[in-house]
């Protein structure tokens, strides 16, 4: 009997709290715009419009991080890499699961409030994993793109669908794997399908109705500027997908998007020209979608160097002058600093071995040095880095990301014909191996035994100084890593890797502070949030989402 009354009291107070919370549990644009002011929440895919994945939370410190305790684990119900990035709004986490389910989860206990299932059309084609990387929220809605190229809006409290519109033609292998970006009253997504001869675009939809507001192709059509960077009808099926969430500068009213590879992937000779805006960053007006500027990292790409990295924005004093910059560790092996007002190239240096190019000219254009047939190209097909979200800490003023060191590919180009909805690759590739027939690495890890070893490639977490474009420190792992980064105001860098270790590293010097083996590959960035004054950090490893906090 003794136990009963406290529980009753607790229940009643919980109900009251929830009632109050719900009354204010709206996520209007103003909150998302000022998300840096409420670090207790993780309101967008990249943790804010600047995409810094930096949190003001500092309860977990280098001194106490080793005391972190597992609070709860949520098991995935499906197989395959779990690349979803949770969103946290007022103690409720929204996370997606393959192929296209959304769950609302109590961020303190890990128990699920509701689950919405979208079953993609059977003919949905995804080149490299049936991934979904998460949702966006606005007001009382949750938005998810789908593998069959639809955009779905859900009621944030009930999980019921409010609208469901077509973003692209699934029969032509369009898909959406990214988390949408919400800006003002619009939901913005890009399309995947760069291995299937799509023509990429970014499109915005009215958040209330799903009506298309604007659509900007990443390959200019006839009569548009830079259409002449393609020949014949190559532009109609030239790829240039957009499959990673962009960033937004409210002062400039510009959204920034990384654009993927041209198609066919490996036969650049089949599509002469620079193939704009493939492998570029594009700046689009948030209201109209109008292209304001672009910067191309890899013209006439023959190596699948998608530029689908997250555009990381910062306002810093750059070499003595206050500037609005954009930092970019590209799949092509170069680290760039751009002026995000104009797209001007400020700095660019290789962050690892690069042999497809001997350097960048004064405008940031690479000087090509294609390797002879049969010879390895550095970095390899998966890139020096890829879509894994980086982080920038305004405290250390360093940029952090996962690189694949000593990893190379031997490419083979061949002519290929475009057929709608079919693979359009233009050849193939093999990974440079230390011995004939030795096992190598590819997309994801499914084997608990590493029998390929670090001789095929290994992870190097790099801390880059945007002032110099140089590496300040690095932290190596034995296997490669597809893990993203999270930094906090206590100078902790949280990250993972394919080996399943969850690491806390000193963001100032690269010292390992703490780690724990969670056992499954970590292929997304950790996120942090707080509820009732307690800081939590969540990370997905393998098929489990684990959430840690300090003991009371």
């Amino acid at each position, binding site marked *: 009997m003794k136990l009963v009354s406290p529980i009753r009291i607790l229940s009643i107070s919980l109900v009251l709290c929830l009632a109050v919370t719900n009354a204010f549990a709206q996520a209007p644009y103003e909150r998302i715009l000022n998300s840096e002011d409420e670090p207790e929440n993780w309101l967008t895919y990249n943790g804010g419009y600047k995409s810094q994945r930096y949190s003001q939370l500092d309860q977990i410190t280098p001194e106490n991080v080793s005391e972190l305790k597992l609070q709860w684990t949520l098991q995935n119900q499906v197989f395959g890499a779990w690349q979803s990035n949770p969103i946290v709004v007022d103690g409720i986490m929204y996370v997606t699961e393959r192929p296209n389910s959304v769950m609302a989860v109590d961020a303190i206990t890990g128990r699920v409030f509701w689950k919405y299932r979208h079953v993609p059309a059977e003919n949905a084609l995804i080149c490299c994993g049936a991934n979904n990387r998460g949702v966006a929220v606005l007001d009382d809605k949750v938005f998810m793109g789908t593998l069959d190229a639809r955009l779905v809006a859900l009621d944030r409290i009930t999980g019921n669908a409010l609208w469901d519109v077509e973003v692209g033609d699934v029969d032509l292998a369009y898909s959406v794997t990214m988390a949408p970006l919400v800006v003002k009253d619009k939901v913005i997504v890009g399309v995947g399908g760069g291995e299937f001869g799509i023509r990429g675009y970014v499109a915005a939809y009215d958040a209330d109705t799903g009506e298309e507001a604007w659509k900007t192709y990443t390959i200019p059509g006839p009569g548009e500027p830079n259409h002449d960077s393609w020949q014949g009808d190559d532009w109609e099926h030239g790829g240039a997908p957009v499959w990673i969430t962009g960033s937004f500068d409210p002062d400039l009213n510009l959204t920034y998007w990384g654009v993927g590879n041209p198609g066919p992937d490996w036969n650049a000779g089949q599509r002469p020209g620079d193939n704009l805006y493939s492998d570029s960053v594009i700046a689009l007006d948030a209201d109209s979608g109008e292209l304001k500027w672009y910067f191309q990292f890899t013209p006439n790409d023959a190596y699948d160097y998608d530029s689908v990295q997250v555009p990381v924005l910062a306002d810093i004093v750059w070499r003595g002058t206050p500037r609005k910059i954009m930092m970019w560790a590209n799949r092509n092996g170069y680290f760039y600093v751009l002026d995000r007002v104009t797209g001007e190239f400020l700095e660019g240096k290789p962050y690892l071995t690069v042999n497809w190019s001997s350097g960048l000219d004064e405008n940031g254009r690479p000087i090509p040095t294609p390797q002879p047939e049969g010879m390895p190209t550095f970095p390899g097909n998966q890139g020096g880095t890829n879509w894994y979200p980086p982080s920038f800490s305004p405290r250390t003023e360093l940029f952090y990301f996962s690189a694949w060191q000593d990893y190379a590919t031997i490419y083979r180009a061949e002519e290929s014909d475009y057929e709608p909805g079919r693979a359009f690759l233009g050849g193939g590739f093999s990974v440079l191996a230390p011995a004939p027939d030795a096992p190598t690495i590819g997309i994801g890890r499914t084997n608990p035994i590493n029998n390929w070893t670090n001789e095929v490639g290994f992870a190097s977490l790099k801390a880059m100084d945007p002032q110099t474009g140089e590496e300040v420190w690095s932290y190596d792992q034995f*296997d490669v890593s597809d893990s993203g980064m999270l930094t906090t105001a206590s100078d902790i860098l949280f990250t993972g890797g394919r080996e399943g270790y969850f690491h806390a590293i000193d963001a100032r010097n690269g010292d390992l502070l703490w780690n724990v083996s969670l056992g499954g590959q970590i292929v997304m960035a950790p996120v942090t949030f707080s509820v009732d004054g307690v800081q939590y950090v969540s990370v997905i490893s393998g098929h489990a989402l684990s959430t840690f906090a300090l003991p009371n």
Partner: protein
Amino acid sequence: MKIRNSRIARLPALVFSALIAVSAHQAQAQEVDDHQYTSEAIEAGLQVYTQQCALCHGPQGALVDGINLRIGQFRTVQSDADLRQVISEGAAQGRMPSFSLRADEMNGVIAYIRAGFDPEGEAVKIGDPIRGQALFEGEGQCADCHRVRGVGPRTAPDLSNIGSIRTPASLQRNLLDPATALLPINRPVRLVTRFEETIVGRRLNEDTYTVQVIDSQERLRSLKKIDLVSYEISDEPSKQPTTLSSDEVADVIGYLLTLRGLE
């Protein structure tokens, strides 16, 4: 910790004695050509295959159920002599007809099949598995280190399943030029712990913070790198190039290809 430290092979005792025995034979790398069909033969085989075989077996050699010529999957054939016999005499109650090919045509089509249908590939001679087993256990000294079907030491990789995970070309490279064929994971390692224990063996798995090995006493050991004062991985394989003749190597390969796990 920087973990690569080449050419310091403190070999496990068992491997070491085998090495001395092989060295006594003045081991030298052999010419690969002796063990392979020529590219001319493979090229000629492509012509024969296209005209005579492809109609039933298909361009990729996989159209007949249970047979995949390109990857060396047959119903009854093991050695090249078996192939020759099936082609010239027919098989499967006449469903595989007999073909009267000239010697160079026969040689070519076998070369083409053994090259994995790749005109630029390597076609490996495959000999008699019975003789091969005798060589494996005897003169070839393979069984001194390798275990097969529950017999032999465990320090080198167990070969009970090797025929289903390696190509003939890969097996041949391992015999003729082990230094370039050795998979990195199989390189000999030598670890010294801060408790002053020295462990020699072969890696089974590794990550950033730990390494799992089978040591020279055939024990499974898992070590934290933080506990290691030295960790050396040798570029030198624990075996020397074989001194067996070309035909004998073909026989050993023939035997290895029969090792496909439990019967």
